[in-house]
């Protein structure tokens, strides 16, 4: 069976600075995969490359078996890959509802619409007419997730949902994840909190200095092996 997403020796970076040195990641249909690693390991660069914001060679990224590397980002979202960007990056000139509606710009049909997102995060319905950046950090993260869901992706990529949020809010946000992937959606979760990442995923990849240093089942991997792969030294 063809995996939903497969990267083959993915390289990439910013201008002259190379951040990825050949990453192989596979995501199956309906699977939740965690990407863990230290700051600057290349996790966000990986997601941006898959989303089309950074250049990649066509054959380095296969989606449903077809090469999509190098396609512009505005075409990739229409194929069913959505990114919740690091730091939320909501549009300050738009209200909560307008941010969500813009997420549906590509017009992919599916079960996610305004009502479905408000059903997932009821607090957003009350604040739908507020400017998006007037909300609390946790609520802004809900808008960012909802905005990505509005494009009805088959693959949802979340970059550091916990960034700048209180632990209790982080748990609340991750509690919504099972309901999101219940419809068969795949997800890549980038997270610094290793324990949290392993809890919500079935498999994980540990990235270190632009290379995959360890991959395995989230439930069965040993803490020592992960620490070794995470920091590059024996803990």
């Amino acid at each position, binding site marked *: 069976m063809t995996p939903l997403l497969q990267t083959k020796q993915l390289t990439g970076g910013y201008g002259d600075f190379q951040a990825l040195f050949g990453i192989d990641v596979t995501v199956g249909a309906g699977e939740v995969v965690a990407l863990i690693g230290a700051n600057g390991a290349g996790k966000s660069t990986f997601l941006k490359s898959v*989303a*089309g*914001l950074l250049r990649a060679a066509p054959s380095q990224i296969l989606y449903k078996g077809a090469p999509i590397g190098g396609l*512009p*980002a*505005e*075409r990739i*979202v*229409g194929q069913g890959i*959505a*990114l919740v*960007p690091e730091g939320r*990056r909501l*549009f*300050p*000139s*738009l209200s909560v509802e*307008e941010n969500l*509606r*813009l*997420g549906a*710009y*590509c*017009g992919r049909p599916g079960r996610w619409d305004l009502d479905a997102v408000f059903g997932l995060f009821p607090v957003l319905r009350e604040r739908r007419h507020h*400017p998006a*950046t007037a909300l609390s950090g946790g609520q802004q993260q809900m808008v960012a997730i909802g*905005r*990505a869901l509005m*494009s009805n992706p088959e693959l949802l990529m979340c970059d550091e949902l916990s960034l700048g949020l209180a632990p209790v809010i982080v748990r609340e946000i991750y509690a919504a994840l099972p309901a999101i992937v219940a419809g068969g959606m795949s997800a890549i979760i980038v997270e610094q909190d290793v324990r949290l990442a392993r809890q919500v995923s079935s498999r994980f990849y540990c990235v270190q200095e632009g290379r995959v240093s360890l991959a395995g089942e989230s439930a069965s991997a040993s803490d020592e092996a992960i620490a070794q792969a995470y920091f590059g030294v024996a803990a």
Partner: protein
Amino acid sequence: MNTLVNILLQGVLLGALYALFAMGQSLVFGVMRLTNIAHGDFIVLLVFLLFALTGIAHLPLAVALLLLVVIAFAAGYGVQYFLLNRVSSRDPLPSLMVTFGLSIVIQNVLQELFSADPRAIATGGFEALSVALPGGITVGYLPLLTLLATIGLTFGLQWLFGRTALGRAFRATSDDREIVQLMGVSHRRTYALAMAIAFVLIAVAAALYGMRTAVAPADGPALLLYAFEAVIIGGMGSFWGTFLGGMALGVAQQAGFYFDPGWGIWLGHVMFLAVLVVRPQGFLPKTA
């Protein structure tokens, strides 16, 4: 009393034209932070295009106007997509240089083709018609039409930006042109559409301006100045700000003209400088 009412009324009517000049500039700056130095020259260019369509090709005015709007839309899209998108970045200098160059090219090409003589659009005497109000005040049909067009277009733009999917895409692209691509919005096409709409506004302004007065190839920079002043007086918050900015400029000039025909333009600039000193953010500044 009548004099005061007359100055205000004529000022508002003149201001409507300035607001119309400024509307395209306001749109382009709002969506892509582009300062178009050739804005005034594009107005003059379209006046001459309309002159060529009616005066040389002898098309009926209505047909020529329709053709002008279509050509303007396509030209605006093309100029942005193939030329200005290449120099659009956080650095404002490259686009300033390119539009400055366009300004010089347009002026000289028009002089080469049409000579330096001023030209006007023939309307069959419509520009001279007026209605007499009580108190000895006379209002021209053409200025009145200009005011109605400006009000209508301001409403239209405000609706487009506030209520439609395209308007959301415009505002979001202005906020963050990287992330908007993740929504499936091509910022290059959005920019091109914004310039296309700005060119339609320029076409309307050009038609009404060319009917009102004779226009010479080198008149563009003066029009650019009025557009700039109206945008800055109004603030960057909304198209109604630009509308108010145009009105303020028109009334100030009209007041100057009352005291001395040489004072009109001057008093407009003085009012602009006064606003910069007292309220540099403009009447309706951007709140977000």
